[in-house]
């Protein structure tokens, strides 16, 4: 459902202003980010469209910047009452570790470990759930991706070091 812009938390304006500022930074750096040395005139070149869309982003962020500098009387930083996303942040950290784990210890062990640790952290304590779910999901992932689809997964770095 749509949220009327004026009545919402200042967090919205802060995020919009951040996106606008990022767009401005990219716009300023665009001549160095895009090679325009080709023979094409500007309207055929690779620069015209990015400039237009970055300008659109900056323009679209201006109302939020204005509200951020001149907050309305009823403005607050209250967002949705759900608090800081600590649980989400921790699971995200597990997810990033899982990506490193894919390279370091391989698909099988990292998938199993991620599922086990994440489920434990999210409150599952039944040994049956903690053992069976990671095993079943990992087994299915390995079966489908490695054996049915034949996807190549790199040799785990740990195994490489061990073999050396």
């Amino acid at each position: 459902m749509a949220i009327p812009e004026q009545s919402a938390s200042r967090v919205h304006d802060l995020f919009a202003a951040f996106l606008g500022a990022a767009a401005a930074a990219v716009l300023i750096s665009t001549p160095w980010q895009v090679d325009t040395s080709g023979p094409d005139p500007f309207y055929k070149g690779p620069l015209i469209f990015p400039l237009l869309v970055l300008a659109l982003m900056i323009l679209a962020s201006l109302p939020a910047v204005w509200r951020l500098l001149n907050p309305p009387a009823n403005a607050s930083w209250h967002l949705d009452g759900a608090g800081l996303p600590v649980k989400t942040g921790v699971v995200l950290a597990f997810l990033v570790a899982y990506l490193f784990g894919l390279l370091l210890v391989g698909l099988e062990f990292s998938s199993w470990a991620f599922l086990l640790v994440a489920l434990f952290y999210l409150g599952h304590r039944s040994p049956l759930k903690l053992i069976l779910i990671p095993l079943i999901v990992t087994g299915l992932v390995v079966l489908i991706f490695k054996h049915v689809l034949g996807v190549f997964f790199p040799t785990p770095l740990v195994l490489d070091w061990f073999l050396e």
Partner: protein
Amino acid sequence: MLENVIAGLQATLTAGNLAALMFGTLVGIIVGILPGIGPMVGMVVLLPFTFALHPDIALSLLLGVFCGGYFGGGIPAILMRTPGVPSSLITTFDGFPLTQKGEAQTALSAALLGSFGGGIVSVFILVFLAPLLSHVAASFGPPEYFAAGLFGVVLVVMANRQQLSRGLLLLGLGLWFSTVGIDGATLCPRFWFGTLSLQNGLDLVPVCLGLFGIGQTLVLVERKILQADGMNLTGRTLDFSKLLVAMRYWKTLIRSGVIGTFIGLLPGTGSILASFMSYEAAKRASPRPDDFGRGTPEGCLAAEAGNNAVPAGAMIPLLTLGIPGEALSAVLLGVFTINGIYPGPLLLIKEPVLINTLYFSMFLINIAAFFMLALWLRPFAMIVKVPHTILAVTIMVVSLVGIYAVNTRIFDAVLAVVMGVLGYILLRLGWPIVNLVMGVVLGEILENRLRQSLSLGDGNPSIFLTRPISLGLIIASALLIVIPLLVDRRRARASAT
């Protein structure tokens, strides 16, 4: 002509295609029943699996999820007043009161018949309307395509006009994402920030999977969306005798299917509007309008027929203009382009067998979804009892491994996680995330057509105003912006006084 239809039917009835559409429908029903997951998550999670498949099989798989999701969404809406997909909110108006009266089977029969009928009506309209629109689009040049793309973008932005500047900001971000990587026309690398992996650009698949798959699961981790304890359903299967009650409303069914298809055809309007408009039309036409909202099967039937007609409606601009109407059809566009097939007016001429296969598959998906739900009603309804945290972490693993599998690049998985964080923030803030996806999908089309048009006009942008179709589309886009804003302002003034 006839040989293409027969070839399409034969391709539809191959074991691979049938298995794909059945599996897709099954997944679609499951993700549709689970509130907070939805067909988009189902489609993006299955997307990496489609790369090894023939395009018609890949499309059947994803269309199964697309349509199946809308079928499934009505079940928790009726049994627990919790819509599985947002558009099933309208189904709760009459579905849950019927359940409270002990007539859950009547409500479910009406909803299932509505979903089935709406889907079939919309496929008929698709079959007849797509060639007509394709014929018109055949005369399009770059300026007309640009203007049509612009029209689509304006519709999407104005659909969320209460968040106009946020919508524009996300659209701009999506359009900018589409410029990252090597420019196809000049082969110049753009915005790669010294990272070689970025020279390949931001692929649509990790972007969608991150925004919707990972983003949604991060939301699921912290919020218990559903209380399934009070679910009330008698019988393992659908009570087929109740279908006769629902069949009395066949006029409502056809009307709602037509309304849903035409709303689905317009980019950005979405299935909630389709469901709501169908419901309101049924209420106005009913001899007993007061029954609506208190528990009438006609209300369930109208709402479900309206929202289930949207997928086929959304296919019309996708197939004929190559412009997806919303995020779900944008994913389907990804399947086309990955297989070297570019939807547009020539698609119906170049790929007649594929198009006929698609039509037949959509018919079969509606039939399959109806019978799956009718026969396994109770087991499907029980799916809502699966803990949301188990679902979330499982989807995360399948998504990340799937995204790596597409190009065997760990960078894509990293990109999906980054997009997941962005998706989580946008979902938590309630911003119109669809604008971002539309920007990513339409960016390349808009940029290419803009540059081609300007080349045709020697750099003079007045070329867009000298061609009647493009001028008409630009005027229509301007009216779409101005009229709703004026109406809103007038309403605000009226309510202030």
